[in-house]
């Protein structure tokens, strides 16, 4: 397998890229060949090594093996902790996307404070995703490819507990009428 020039080329391209690459993007660099098979072969070769080839939202990239985190963790660059409001908002967007601001507020039971969405968009995890056709044409939010790669998710199906939550009906479209009772009267006082 080491002798396979095509697999080598795919390996080098994925290694050199600053961003995760989709097979089609890899193909633009390596030319004719079965990129998907080459990626699958590489992923197999790297499994169990200190470096892994992983898929994130249809794109592939190399990263260090998660179990070695303790060796590599850089304490001085400790990531800023997300506030509780921002963490919940991110989870709501990820599990319900695309979702409007009003729907996020309905789940959390409070108005969203300024900056909550900004923080998530600045981190590159959340993006505006068009408007919903309907009254008021509300702006919708969804997660990004960067969100998937940052949190090590192959796709949204890999969100923790996704299937259980769906089965339990907890991810059904938010029934806005249900929340209006409190939200509306509460907002009037703000």
């Amino acid at each position, binding site marked *: 397998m080491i002798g396979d020039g095509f697999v080598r080329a795919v390996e080098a*391209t994925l*290694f*050199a*890229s*600053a961003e995760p*690459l989709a097979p089609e993007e890899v193909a*633009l*660099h390596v030319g004719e060949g079965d990129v998907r098979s080459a990626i699958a072969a590489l992923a197999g070769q790297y499994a169990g090594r200190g470096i892994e080839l992983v898929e994130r939202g249809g794109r592939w*990239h*190399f*990263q*260090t*093996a*998660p179990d070695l*985190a303790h060796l*590599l*963790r850089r304490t001085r*660059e400790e*990531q800023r902790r*997300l506030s*509780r*409001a921002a*963490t*919940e908002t*991110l*989870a*709501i967007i*990820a*599990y319900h996307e695309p979702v409007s601001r009003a729907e996020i507020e309905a*789940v*959390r*039971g*409070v108005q969203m404070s300024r900056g909550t969405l900004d923080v998530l968009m600045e981190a590159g995890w959340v993006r505006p995703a068009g408007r919903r056709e309907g009254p008021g044409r509300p702006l919708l939010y969804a997660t990004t490819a960067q969100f998937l*790669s*940052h*949190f*090590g*998710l192959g796709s949204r199906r890999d*969100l*923790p*507990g996704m299937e259980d*939550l769906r089965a*339990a*009906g*907890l991810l059904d479209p*938010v*029934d806005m009428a*249900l*929340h209006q*009772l*409190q939200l509306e*009267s*509460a907002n009037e*006082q*703000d």
Partner: protein
Amino acid sequence: MNAELPICREEELTLSLGTWEGPLDLLLNLARSQKVDLAQISILQLVEQYLTYLTRVKALKLEIAADYLVMAAWLAYLKSCLLLPNDPQQDPDPEELAARLQLRLQRLDAMRDAGARLMGRDRIGRDVFVRDAPEGVRLVRKSEWRVDAYDLYAAYGAVRARSAPVMHVVAPRAVLTLEAAIDRVSALVGSRIDWRRLEAFLPSSQDPAFRRSALASSFAAALELARKGRLELAQAGPFEPIMIRATPGG
């Protein structure tokens, strides 16, 4: 589902409302203090806890945000409905309202739990690392411009045709104007009362273009003078010579 978050005991609930992110958050924490699955929660007991909590806050004369009071009023209403004998006519059905509240708490709890689990994943830059300074891959798109010779010449033709001055040049021609013809015909016809051909009044010229012009203007002059009663016109038949004479006695 809620195992990862610490369960707040009722006695641990601080009385400061600032601790809670709104009434739903407070309700969720009160519900957790019941130490049962949210699906089995006693809504009546929860309502009781909430109202008691607000009463204690009020007793301490702490300021209560409006949305807590709105929720309290709604919960008090829900409580009274739940306690009343079951009335099938009642709309909305109190049992359903309670179920909805329960669903809301479950939803929020699920998302809170999901958020925590998300944050606990192997995250890039914290648990797993990508290359710090990759070479980067670049795709340089180069345009190969296409244009053929016909396009080129057609374009030039179009430019030239567009920019060529659009002007109608009239070359100077020898003409006998109507005014000159009137003067000439009226002078020549004088007071003669014998018929003469129109051609006899034309100035002599070798230029056929001028002769045609003179014929036309002299005829028009004759018509004009006839209209004024100064001369008479006669023609024996179509294409016969046109004859002119001064009006007798005119």
